[in-house]
């Protein structure tokens, strides 16, 4: 408990850092806006055209917007960490909180909690807003897998933000991380995933998105898939911690 007490001011400090930058605060809002907004717009446009018009898996179709929301989550996670590498901002931060583990974990915890809260709101809002436009094809909360998808989609977005945050601490640049991750989730994972069956299912986004699928094709279930994603995010966060601890500021 004594060790935890000095962490409260540093958590408070991290929250002020996030809310005082347009980029990070905007990224957080964009998670909700992109996921639920694109879901609702797409559903309104083509949702009632025919059965399965948004994809053969109706649950995954209800989270079509997550492909866009995850990019906002990455922008938020990467931005929260990369702002420390802007000029010499890190030196000021570490002078205020010299214990690097405390500094880093406070930042990761703040990113995680904010992403989780936003993610949970997004998960529910996306389902409700999207299904409102699906007419006769709409799913209802309580249908098989729907609660899991609502909660799981929020967790997925949280893990994506943490994955990007950890990687940014390792590579010390949000631009580098985003220019690696965005093409990866939009193209590489998609193409590789369609082509190869085996290892590709363990890629972070493909494994994690199983939580919003109703049909499983590979070896992973919805929660084990999310678990694999959590391992990726955990590894990135751990790598970031080692980098922040070791390097000169």
């Amino acid at each position, binding site marked *: 408990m004594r060790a935890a007490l*000095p962490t409260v*001011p*540093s958590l*408070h*400090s*991290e929250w*002020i*850092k996030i809310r*005082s*930058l*347009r*980029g990070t605060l905007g990224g957080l809002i964009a998670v909700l806006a992109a996921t639920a907004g694109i879901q609702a717009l797409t559903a309104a446009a083509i949702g009632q055209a025919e059965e399965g018009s948004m994809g053969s898996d109706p649950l995954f179709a209800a989270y079509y917007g997550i492909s866009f929301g995850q990019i906002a989550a990455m922008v938020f996670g990467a931005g929260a960490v990369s*702002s420390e590498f*802007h*000029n*010499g*901002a890190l*030196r*000021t931060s*570490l*002078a*205020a*909180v*010299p*214990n690097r583990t405390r500094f880093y974990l406070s930042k990761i915890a703040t990113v995680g909690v904010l992403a989780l809260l936003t993610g949970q709101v997004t998960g529910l809002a996306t389902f409700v807003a999207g299904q409102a436009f699906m007419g006769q094809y709409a799913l209802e909360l309580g249908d098989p897998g729907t609660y899991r998808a609502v909660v799981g989609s929020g967790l997925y977005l949280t893990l994506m933000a943490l994955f990007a945050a950890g990687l940014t601490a390792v590579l010390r640049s949000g631009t580098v991380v985003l220019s690696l991750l965005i093409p990866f989730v939009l193209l590489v994972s998609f193409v590789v995933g369609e082509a190869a069956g085996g290892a590709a299912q363990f890629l972070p986004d493909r494994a994690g998105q199983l939580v919003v699928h109703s049909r499983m094709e590979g070896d992973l279930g919805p929660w084990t898939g999310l678990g694999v994603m959590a391992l990726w995010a955990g590894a990135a966060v751990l790598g970031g911690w080692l980098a922040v601890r070791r390097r*000169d*500021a």
Partner: protein
Amino acid sequence: MNSIEIRELTKAYGSHRAVDGLTFDVLPGRVTGFLGPNGAGKSTTMRLLLGLDRATSGTATIGGRRYLDLPDPLHRVGALLDAQSAHGGRTARDHLLFLAAAGRMPVRRVDEVLEQTGIASVARRRIKSFSLGMRQRLGIAAALLGDPGVLLLDEPTNGLDPEGIIWIRELMRGLAAEGRSVLVSSHLMSETSAFADHLVVLGKGKLLADTSMAEFIDARSTRRVRLRTSDPIRLRVALAREGFELAAADDGRWTVEGIRAEQLGNLAAREGIPVLELSDERASLEQAYLDLTADHAQFTATH
């Protein structure tokens, strides 16, 4: 409590030693000028002191404790490292607010230091719109936030206008007079001599001098008197009797090496020689400082 102790401090980057076996103390109650040419290791020493960089060997402590081990670092040490050490996208007030939060300080402190450093009127502007002088004031505001007993200021006059330079000079002297330790780096001797009581001079990472300002001046400047007289012939004879030599200066005045004005004045009075003007002439501090650092450069070059 408020002293800084540097002991055998070394920071090596590969085979290059940015800081090389430094040992000195910074004591409270006075302004210590931290001098050296660019690249002498001043900023590195300050970063090592704050635990931002890791020392290869040796220690740097504040009141006997490493910065990392201080329970309330912002209340003990205030640092201005670099005017650019702030994210340009934040407002000045938000920058200070997150620091205040980390140090458990009331929001009132933020407004106080904004007033004290004269940037209250631009507090809600983004830092990227600030001039170098305004950033420098913000950095000083951040250093003062926790009302610390130790201040580390790296080139604080950078970018300040003449009015700002006088302000920071008086601020530093005031802080030292309140019993704080103030370490101020600069690469300009002329500037440092205006506010420092004590000097620590570095060259290529090594300690060249650790002395009071007065001792530095006495030891490093040759004694010389400059005068005007209506009777140089008698004065020359009188001086020669005492072992001094009168030499003509280019502007119709005369100079005497190795003597003080007081001594020469007495001698002239005794002899009844009219002296129209008389003053001690100190070799310029800047010159003494350049000689010191140049000596060192020569020493390392022949090494």
